[in-house]
């Protein structure tokens, strides 16, 4: 039964991983740019949740959408002011651009909020319920299910709507898209907006049960890299499966070999994927 609990918790966290990783994979697949500040976007969203709750005493019904909107705007702003200019430049510029952004976000937050860990109250969404021997923490369950729903929703948005096909057309072939009258710039800005909004929602959700600190983005970014590489870059369904998998693996390794070593397992998995299947577990050879 404990094992069932561990897997369930891993699955719920994994759904949130899947959501913010979908944002990364969308951006990456569309313009072959890696957002090294992705984890810090999640971190900013966590602080949005924290500030809204502590200063205004408002719950997730407010801070989740608010974080989504704010991060969407941040994503679009970053695209127009930075990414658009560095993405055709040398590799050094491509990598340093968003890396510099990560440092600014991380250490500006540290400056404002200090390095202390903070968190939202455990019972923000009510007390723990026990069903069939499984402890269901409302915050985890809500976060996990909401993230799962939104990740699937993002997939449907990309595959079932006119907007989605325009986005994918630009991802497929920028020049061909221009020939059929799709301007790539707004589409790419939109992809950055949506990708960042994913981190907004995911960050606000994960804040319900995760510690919040200015440097938390560092490990979250690495998780997003693992998920995207594992799922194959550009693939939202891939990110979903990989996110859930990583959540469960992480949870199981924390259980079996101790929480301190869970990151070791995730990193080793990442390196193994990079070395043996750089196209992702689910990608084509």
């Amino acid at each position: 039964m404990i094992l069932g609990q561990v897997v369930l918790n891993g699955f719920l966290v994994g759904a949130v991983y899947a959501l913010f990783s979908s944002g990364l994979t969308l951006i990456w697949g569309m313009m072959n740019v890696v957002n090294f500040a992705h984890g810090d976007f999640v971190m900013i969203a966590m602080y949005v949740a924290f500030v809204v709750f502590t200063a205004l005493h408002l719950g997730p019904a407010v801070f989740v959408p608010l974080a989504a909107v704010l991060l969407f705007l941040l994503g679009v702003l970053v695209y127009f002011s930075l990414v658009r200019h560095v993405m055709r430049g040398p590799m050094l510029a491509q990598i340093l651009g968003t890396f510099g952004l990560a440092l600014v976000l991380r250490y500006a937050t540290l400056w404002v909020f200090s390095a202390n860990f903070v968190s939202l109250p455990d019972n923000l969404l009510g007390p723990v319920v026990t069903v069939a021997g499984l402890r269901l923490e409302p915050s985890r369950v809500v976060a996990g299910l909401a993230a799962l729903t939104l990740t699937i929703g993002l997939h449907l948005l990309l595959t079932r709507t006119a907007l989605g096909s325009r986005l994918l057309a630009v991802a497929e072939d920028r020049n061909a898209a221009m020939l059929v009258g799709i301007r790539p710039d707004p589409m790419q800005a939109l992809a950055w907006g949506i990708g960042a909004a994913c981190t907004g929602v995911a960050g606000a959700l994960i804040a319900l049960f995760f510690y919040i600190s200015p440097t938390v983005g560092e490990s979250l970014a690495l998780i997003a890299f693992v998920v995207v590489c594992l799922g194959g870059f550009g693939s939202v369904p891939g990110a979903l499966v990989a996110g859930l998998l990583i959540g469960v693996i992480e949870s199981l390794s924390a259980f079996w070999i101790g929480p301190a070593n869970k990151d070791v397992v995730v990193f080793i998995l990442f390196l193994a994927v990079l070395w043996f299947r750089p196209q992702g577990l689910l990608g084509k050879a």
Partner: protein
Amino acid sequence: MSASITAPARSAGRLVFAAFVLLALLVWPLLVENVFYQRVGALVMLAALSASAWNLVGGYAGQISIGHVLFFGCGAYASLLGFTWFEWPPIMGAPFGIALSLLLAVLVGLPTLRLKGHYFSMATIALAELARIIVVNSPSLGGGVGISGPAIPRSMADLSFISPLPYYYIFGAVLAVLLLFTWWMGRARMGFYLRAIRGQERAARSLGVPAQRYKLYALLVSAGFTSLAGSLYAAMVGFVDPDSGLGILLSVKMVIVSALGGAGTLFGPLVGAAILVPLEEFTNAAFGGDGTGITYVVYGAIIMLISRYAPGGLAEILARLKAWGARHAR
């Protein structure tokens, strides 16, 4: 026409200028009494050394490693573990740190140097973080607390001096060796091949450039010197913990110091260090503990600006200014 007349004059002028700079670098610490400045000078040399080592892989070969602290940490830990376990003078651990770094460079390089651009950067971040977490969780390696060197110097071999000056000259000497190598390399086949790989790897290979092999060579030299820098740093400070020996910010610092001065240029890292290290030390002195946060906000802003406006760093800005001047002189 005019170029052929001024060329020898210009290179003679450059030689005089270089000699002057060298002399200034050698003499200034002796003229400055203030220990704080001397210490900043030593740290500039150290940062220039590690950034110049990074520059071989990241600058010349264009493979952006963000995990170079892995090698730095090997050196630093090898030095102080040698002392902790066997009471060796810290510097005796340096060869072991270098050996371990070279081994890791091969293990890391063979698979990751195959990876394209971003993947290589991500793999190096993950590797360095992996090493850091492993050390944090290994009490025999000092865990999260870290390990120390000799409390009081036992002999000259401990390289434990109260004044920063000896460190300034030691770091400077190793830097000089590395820069000499880089200068030679820039004119030899290896330098041409690395720059070609950075420019267009596919095209380079079609001209017979064994890209994998040359990237690995660059990584090996780079790892060796980075490790040596780590060992010397450990001898100077007499202490290393996961943050000061394996923290991701150290990797970032190597990248940004090179990028600011000009990645892939001989003196770029030295120039970058001469600007950034004093900036960091003065903010730290002025703001105390808060300084770290401010420093990295500034660092982040600087690299964003560089990548947005001048990916070639100050070297590129200088070249543009020269071109602008030449256009307006006419």
